[in-house]
């Protein structure tokens, strides 16, 4: 835990600050993300109560940025958690059982890896219509695979360690060995990969939203904001620069942080 909160590491603080802003801002701003100010369509920055101005139909840009960041991070964290739970369960089972079970389980993972993921998500959207739930399912479908592979490798390495054999000789049941000896010792590595999964999911979610396949209007996300900004960039470049810059900053900081943790734990 001490490794997670390194006080001298600025990217962590940037991420935490962005999360805090995304949570607090909607509560204190006079405008909500879907509220239209008919008196100020395409208002420039610092006009009245609109700090970053308004978009082409008069919604407050700052409020939409905060709401978009919130949705994007929520999707990212939720999908990463799903990938963590499924990946650890799958990978730990395969690694611990070994042999034929392991072969079968890991070939299944390989098969899923081979599927054209983007194509399947688009098909799902077309068939079932756009919903935030489908975004979860689509992203969750791929993100747990890497986690499962990492966890399996770690478990297989740990399985050979004498303290696991000693626990077996001590009569500790298998399930307890996995829960008390194996999993706590891979927690660090799993945490590091969790941190690396978050920016990946942010990326995928923004990409889907940019294509118009992700979150639905009037709900917004960073991907949608970038798309809207891009459509209108010759009139108001701020509309593209703000969400785009925010997305880049978020991705860079999360990735640096994840790589740092990975280096700490492996």
């Amino acid at each position, binding site marked *: 835990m001490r490794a997670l909160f390194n006080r001298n590491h600025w990217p962590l603080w940037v991420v935490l600050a962005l999360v805090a802003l995304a949570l607090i801002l909607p509560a204190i701003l006079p405008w909500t993300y879907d509220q239209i100010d008919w008196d100020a369509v395409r208002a420039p920055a610092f006009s009245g109560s609109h700090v970053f101005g308004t978009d082409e139909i008069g919604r407050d840009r700052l409020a939409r940025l905060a709401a978009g960041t919130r949705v994007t991070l929520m999707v990212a964290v939720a999908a990463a958690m799903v990938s963590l739970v499924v990946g650890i369960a799958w990978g730990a089972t395969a690694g611990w059982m070994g042999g034929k079970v392991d072969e079968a389980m890991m070939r299944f993972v390989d098969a899923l890896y081979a599927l054209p993921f983007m194509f399947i998500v688009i098909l799902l959207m077309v068939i079932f219509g756009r919903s935030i739930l489908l975004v979860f399912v689509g992203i969750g479908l791929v993100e747990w695979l890497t986690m499962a592979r990492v966890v399996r490798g770690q478990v297989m390495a740990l399985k050979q360690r*004498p303290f696991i054999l000693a626990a*077996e*000789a*001590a009569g500790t049941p298998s399930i307890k060995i996995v829960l008390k000896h194996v999993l706590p010792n891979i927690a660090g590595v799993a945490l590091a990969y969790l941190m690396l999964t978050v920016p990946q999911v942010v990326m995928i979610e923004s990409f889907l939203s940019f294509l118009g396949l992700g979150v639905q209007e009037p709900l917004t996300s960073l991907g949608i904001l970038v798309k809207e900004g891009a459509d209108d960039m010759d009139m108001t470049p701020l509309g593209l620069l703000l969400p785009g810059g925010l997305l880049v900053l978020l991705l860079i900081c999360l990735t640096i942080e994840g790589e740092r943790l990975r280096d700490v734990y492996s």
Partner: protein
Amino acid sequence: MSVYEIRDMAIQIDGKRLVEDVNITVEPGKCTAIIGASGSGKSLTCLTPFGLTPGTASGSIKLDGIELASANAREMHLARSRYTGFVFQQPLTALTPHLTIGKQLQEATSQAGPQRLSRQELALMLERVGLSRADERLDQFPHRLSGGERQRVMIAAAIAHQPKLLIADEPTSALDASLRGEIMALLDGLRVEHGLATLLVSHDIASVENHSDDLIVMDQGRVIESGPTVDIITNPQRDYTKRLIAATPRLTEPAPVLPVVGDILMEAEDTTVLFPRPGWRQGKIEAVADASLSVREGEAVAIVGGSGSGKSTLGRAVAGIGPLTSGTIKWQAELLPERRERSLAMRKLIQPVFQDPVASLNPRWKVGDIVLEPLRNLSPELSSPERNNKLAQALDDVGLGPEYIDRVSTSLSGGQAQRVAIARAIIAGPKMLVLDEATSALDPLVGGAILQLLAELQRAHRLSIIFITHDIASARRLCHRIVVLDAGHVVEMGAMAEVVENPKASVTKLLIEASKR
């Protein structure tokens, strides 16, 4: 006239003085050995003058007239490339994996000058270090060679440019026991033949005593004692040296008085263990083949053999923590099933202790929890105060105080960790311990203390012991009988004294030779 002379050397890393007041002299054709426990600064002492560690050396270090302490880059290069050869501990990592043996040797010789050697000359170099089929080997990559062969190549490369000084940093400690004697004999022969001055580093006093002229004993960055090897071994002056010599098991020491043995407890018959080949390949690897073994109450039996002989696999099958393909393991008259089918009552009988003490403790647990784990499972009827009494008793048995209960396992030294592992093994009151190289990863002093502890426990608890090792000398301190394994087969079996006096199998002879060193 000495080749290499160190006077009043001190070594600093990041402003910390790690080594002080070192004086070493090495003469041509002679060998000076440095011994000491890990962390005593012996490797720093021999590598730092050549700029091979992060430290800086001060004082006077003369190599054939060059002052290394104040040498500029060109002189240092000359000293390293022309006058010195190095042999390191790990023969696997010391050779460059993508170069063939021939290219490695060519690179080593070209240090001394621009001339390229012909193929015959290179092959001759390999023959000089005792490698057969030398011509063929020139085209092989390091991974095709065994550990002993690689170390021979390392030695060939180290002396390829005809250096004046050879520095060997634990050249045999990563090798199989039966190979150690051969490599040391090779170094001795080359030293005499070429008049090489040799600086030998080791943590093991017994492995250098017959191969060195002068001995330097180091402890905590200081030279404790130095002088001719024979004088120090026969008449050590300092307390540390005395303890070190006493702790090192030798075949020449008088046989210990061993406890009386009772009836047969454990009988393993025709034990065979097969492992599937990795991946999708067909066939099986036979790790243990039809090995039989019996242990009586209070008796200690040594299973010895080189690496890959199947001794650990046999021990694990007996302890119920490894696979058993066929054969029977009986406890008195009762059959012990394989691995996961063993009941808790059966688990209570046999407990293991492993080679690497640090890896055998869960790094996230406290000592108290680690030692109590078997008790919680195997004697669930005990109340919590009873458990704590047993914990205190077990720690006391292995010579650790109650203050260790709340220590995290990663904060323990190797010797302390091994004591904790032994406490965990004995807390539930087992009848037999399976010790898998329990002392070989430890420094001689610490290992000697653990052997002593095991001998005491053997008496106090009437424990039967299976002592798996490659070192017959340390097995002799504890064991009544000996079983020698080679490639999974039992090749010799008998009373310890008889086998040591009169070994029959060639593997046994090699292992005894290695223990004499």
